[in-house]
């Protein structure tokens, strides 16, 4: 889907947002996405999470390609 990004959420982030999949209009960068999410879901501001774009963890602010899958990942707790 052009001009859209797919958001996936996990763990306590999914619980907070109430949905594990969202589709949003294209957002330019991961920092822009965070601003958007913090406005929509204020509680996320106090929660720790990483962002993966197309299954790669991002460091700092990164561009989000068109149609990307962007995942919100709370601290891993496997094992």
């Amino acid at each position, binding site marked *: 889907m052009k001009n859209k990004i797919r958001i996936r959420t*996990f763990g306590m982030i999914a619980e907070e947002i109430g949905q594990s999949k969202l589709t949003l209009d294209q957002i330019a960068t991961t920092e822009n996405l965070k601003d958007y999410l913090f406005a929509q879901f204020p509680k996320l501001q106090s929660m720790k999470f990483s962002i993966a774009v197309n299954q790669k963890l991002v460091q700092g602010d990164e561009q989000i390609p068109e149609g990307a899958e962007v995942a919100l990942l709370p601290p891993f707790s496997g*094992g």
Partner: protein
Amino acid sequence: MTMEKQRTPKNIFVQGAISPEKIAKSIANHQSKTDIGGHSIFLGQVRKDQKDNGTVVAIEYTAYEEMALQKAFEIREAIFAKYPLNCMHIYHSLGRVDAGQICLFVFTSSKHRRAAMDACDELVERIKAELPVWGKELLDSEEHVWKVNQ
């Protein structure tokens, strides 16, 4: 040009607890590999921890599966490159695993014991730190808390 066996991501996830019989079968499968001298195994087991709002009765695991399998593959390749191993197996539960049951099974084999032992250690640390997997600890009070790894 040499032909190398091309390894590809393989599934590490199993639904529910990992049974002792599965572990026995995996061990038995290595009896034909007579250049192996040592196996190292790590098993993670769900603890019945006391929390503020109740006692843990089970952990429900979820994962970002596509990313976890790709990451597990990268870890696997890195460990194979670092240690002289004959075999390496990783199994992680998804869904509900009751207290006392096994949720993680890591299995390494080598000619001499040191490689299997060191590789197993490193695999377990990396799996816990790097795989996008989450444990939701279910309490006897019907509440839950999200597992935090040390």
